[in-house]
């Protein structure tokens, strides 16, 4: 594999008074926190709390109504920030182009920007697929021929092509069975340790969050209600956070008697 350990240093992210509304609905309500360089930062919260919207701000797919996000020392909305810092995102659905093969998907950025020769691209693609433990036999397949877990891994491989300094994962284990989710979680952690990239993971999967996070932030209705290490989060007292962490499916005796 050509990617050496810690080949790219992560970058810090700073969020100041971030607000965003869609119509009359305010989705992000003055978020303010720091993401440290090289850490695995997990943003957790119930559905509809604004996690994915926040992630879309980080990668520049949304612009804030007010407040700012600084990636390194630059505003995330600044022209060409994507050229100066290597940013990548793994989408909830994978975001793979269904008309392209796995290899074409993984090498898409290099091909489109003509950054490498076709032979070099082929080597890089094979390397990144190997990093997420996918063999060369999947390279010629279409995304529709892969399982959900494999698609997620291909999406991660594609994100790794730019050797990113900041990598964002949107619900990386959604729609996956617990075994595959565990594998994906381990891949995220392993890649973070190997590349040193700052990793921001949005999820409502508690096992994943507490399994991989250096720090966790908990978002409720667009407000940041808790931030800290997994142990600190467990110890915090907030009604929604406690309910979220304790939520478990238990059949009542009424259900059993039916």
């Amino acid at each position, binding site marked *: 594999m050509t990617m050496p350990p810690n080949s790219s240093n992560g970058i810090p992210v700073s969020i100041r008074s971030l607000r965003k509304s869609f119509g009359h609905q305010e989705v992000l309500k003055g978020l303010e926190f720091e993401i440290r360089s090289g850490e695995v930062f997990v943003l957790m919260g119930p559905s509809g709390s604004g996690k994915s919207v926040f992630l879309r701000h980080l990668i520049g797919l949304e612009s804030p109504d007010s407040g700012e996000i600084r990636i390194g020392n630059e505003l995330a909305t600044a022209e060409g920030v994507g050229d100066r810092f290597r940013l990548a*995102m793994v989408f909830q659905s*994978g975001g*793979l182009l*269904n008309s392209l093969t796995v290899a074409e998907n993984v090498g898409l950025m290099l091909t489109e*920007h003509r950054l490498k020769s076709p032979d070099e691209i082929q080597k890089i693609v094979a390397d990144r697929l190997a990093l997420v433990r996918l063999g060369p036999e999947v390279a010629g397949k279409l995304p529709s021929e892969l399982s959900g877990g494999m698609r997620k891994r291909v999406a991660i491989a594609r994100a790794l092509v730019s050797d990113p300094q900041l990598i964002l994962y949107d619900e990386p284990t959604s729609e996956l069975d617990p075994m595959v989710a565990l594998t994906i979680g381990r891949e995220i952690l392993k890649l973070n340790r190997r590349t040193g990239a700052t990793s921001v993971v949005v999820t409502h999967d508690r096992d994943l969050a507490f399994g991989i996070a250096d720090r966790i932030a908990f978002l409720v209705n667009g407000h940041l209600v808790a931030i800290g290490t997994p142990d600190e989060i467990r110890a915090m007292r907030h009604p929604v956070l406690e309910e979220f962490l304790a939520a478990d499916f238990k059949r009542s005796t009424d259900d059993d008697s039916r």
Partner: protein
Amino acid sequence: MFQNLGEMLMLLGATLRALPRVWRDRRKVGEQLFDIGNASLFMACTLSLFIGGVLALQTGPVLSERGLGSSLGGLVALGLCKELAPVMMAVLIAGRIGSAMAAELGSMRVYQEIDALRTLNINPIHYLVVPRVIAISIALPCLVVFANLTGWLGGAVVASMNDRIGVSWNAYFGNLRQVVEFSDLANGMIKSFVFAVVIGVVSCHQGLTTLGGPRGVGRSVTKAVVNSIVFILVLDYVLTRLLLPLDKGWRF
């Protein structure tokens, strides 16, 4: 409505600005061109064969009864090349290709493929819109040429085989050559080129602005086809009016 129109004009502007990249993306244009031709050529020819036939069948007996049967070839040919072929082919392409473009881009938007392109620093307009608009702008005028030829042929077959018309093959094509000028063909080609750009831009715009999952894709497809057809019919009048000076053009 006006916001949509503004967005579409901006999309057209961005597409025009990206034109210098076309040579670089010629493979994508070629693929789109092949898809459009593959999906539409047979249907376009079949449709125009029958349109030519119907045109001859409707007008032939009336002209023959008044001793004007010999001018049938020119009438069918002019009707086809100036009006029916460009408009009918544009409607066909809006339904067949415009809908497919809106559906494909709409699905890509819904399944975050377009967002993924942006995060890879790939401009979706360069990557998705430009090859499609260029391909459809080349394909539609070409289809109109085929539609003219098969339509004329359809008219000739009906004219020569129908007893109430009784215009010979030679008389039909003799009159056609006498009446049809190069400017008439150019008239139809210019119209079809403009219609193609409209279909491409409207359909891609609808696809790129799709919201709300699979239902949203369905809505985008319907809007792409309906809006394209409305624009085609409105622009048909405008273009016909603007292209009137061409009528005194070159003769074959």
